[in-house]
């Protein structure tokens, strides 16, 4: 537990040491939201929910792509001798989840500033969003490790991860639509539960597979 905290704090320090990437990601999302505001001027609630998740998805992709490539290879050898791989991945996952959630909150802030905040069922909205973002960060973190390579860059990352995160995105869009009262669904709990189940399956798989991936 203590070492997971250490990894988490280390990630935080590395992130704040390179302020330009951090600022770049937030600026990217702000710019995109502003661009959309200027293009659409007013958006319907349906467009609002779709845009929110599309921006979040691509910002998260941009943010996590460097999750395993921002440090030198030698550093990883050092970590390898230092940490248990499971502790490392859990630390990374917690950090990445919080980071994407922060990113999501920033995008939400910008969007409510420019385009309004039509959410009616905030409890469902934030609950499902958190579950979805946890799933997103699990898949993206794992794929970012698979696609760490000098020659392919972020293309491989998007090719590999977008189909995998599609089911989560579809569920997120549905729960968001329900929380905006665009559609009514009495069994929305089932979808939230499904989101949690997908998260759990993905988390389990990552924890099982990560050690063998980490060795390389």
């Amino acid at each position, binding site marked *: 537990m203590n070492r997971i905290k250490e990894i988490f704090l280390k990630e935080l320090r590395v992130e704040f040491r390179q302020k330009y990437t951090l600022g770049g990601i937030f600026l990217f999302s702000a710019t995109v939201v502003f661009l959309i505001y200027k293009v659409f001027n007013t958006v319907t609630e349906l467009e609002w929910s779709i845009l929110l998740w599309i921006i979040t998805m691509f910002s998260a992709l941009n943010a996590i792509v460097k999750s395993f490539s921002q440090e030198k290879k030698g550093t990883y050898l050092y970590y390898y001798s230092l940490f248990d791989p499971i502790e490392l991945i859990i630390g990374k996952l917690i950090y990445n989840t919080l980071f994407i959630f922060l990113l999501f909150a920033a995008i939400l802030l910008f969007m409510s500033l420019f385009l309004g905040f039509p959410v009616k069922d905030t409890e469902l909205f934030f609950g499902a969003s958190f579950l979805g973002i946890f799933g997103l960060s699990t898949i993206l973190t794992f794929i970012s490790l698979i696609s760490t390579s000098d020659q*392919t860059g972020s293309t491989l990352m998007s090719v590999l991860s977008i189909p995998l995160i599609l*089911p989560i995105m579809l569920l997120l869009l549905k729960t968001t639509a329900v929380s905006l009262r665009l559609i009514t669904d009495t069994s929305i709990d089932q979808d939230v539960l499904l989101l949690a189940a997908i998260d759990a399956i993905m988390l389990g798989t990552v924890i099982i*597979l990560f050690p063998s991936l980490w060795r390389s």
Partner: protein
Amino acid sequence: MLKGWWWKFGGAFIFLYVLIGGMTIPLRPGITSVQPSNAKTGENILLDITGYNTHFDQAKNIRAWLKLDSTHAINALKTNAEGPNHLQMEFQIPETAPDGNEVYPLHLIIDNEIDGAFILPNAVFVSRSTDSLMFNPNEWTNGKMDKFHNYTGIQFPYRNILNETIRNTFFHVALWFAMFILLLYGVYYSIRYLRSGNFDNDRLASSYTIVAILYGSLGILTGSVWAKFTWNTFWTNDVKLNMTAIALLIYFAYLILRGIQYDQDKRARLAAIYNIFAFIALIPLVFVIPRLQDSLHPGNGGNPALGGEDLDNTLRMFFYPSIIALFLIGKWMAEILTRYERLKDQYFIKSK
């Protein structure tokens, strides 16, 4: 278990059996259409019935009923066969109608000694002309339905929308089953590669997955053609179709991952890990989400699943062998692919 060569010929032979049997066995007799399809209470109607694979002109004893429910039915007054697939019948719709509904459907049942008995549900819709009359069950009991003839022999069931395309069950549905078995094999060899580091397991895993992707693409294609004939569109917004599309995208990404020029060890390891991850991501996609939503496919949204009336014993005679045959042929293809990869690697190492 599957050693030697016999299972390869077994697969080819069973598939030949499925192809010949599945394509040549005729459908059971059925009713394609009834004109007119609506009537009023108390009316005397003349129905023009078009059959399919029927023998109306040869049959001597044609009987027909319009059925309201299991105890209430009316007899045909006159039948007149105008050809093997064409029949004219006269019915007297009773004055009284069951209470409650303004319009009620009647099911048409035809029975003769050659074709057996067959039914067209909701053949005629009757609207009531006077609502003052109380329902009189006696008017409805003159058609006693008994002594049905049974058709003997092997024929596929006749389904009104499916018609001849019911044969696609042997290919479309069986391809998905075979694809899943092959994917399981791929995952199995991926796990074995991660445990042993033996490249042969990696070649096997990739070959099985590639053949499974081929089967998945064929499954989409056959399904699309089937949908054109039954749902009148190549692609619908059906949940199963969309989830399968995502699943195929995941596996196409696997092909891209394999195509990247890593060193062999890294590529094999990444591909194995992605393959396991993708397969587990597939489980909610294919087995969970479609079950929570309505779908046009059987087994969803109140439609009956495998079994019931849609998959009867004559279809089973070809459906299960088809799965086995497609799996065996897929395994054969995967092994040829593995041997090709093995030779390629050997040649590559030698020429260096």
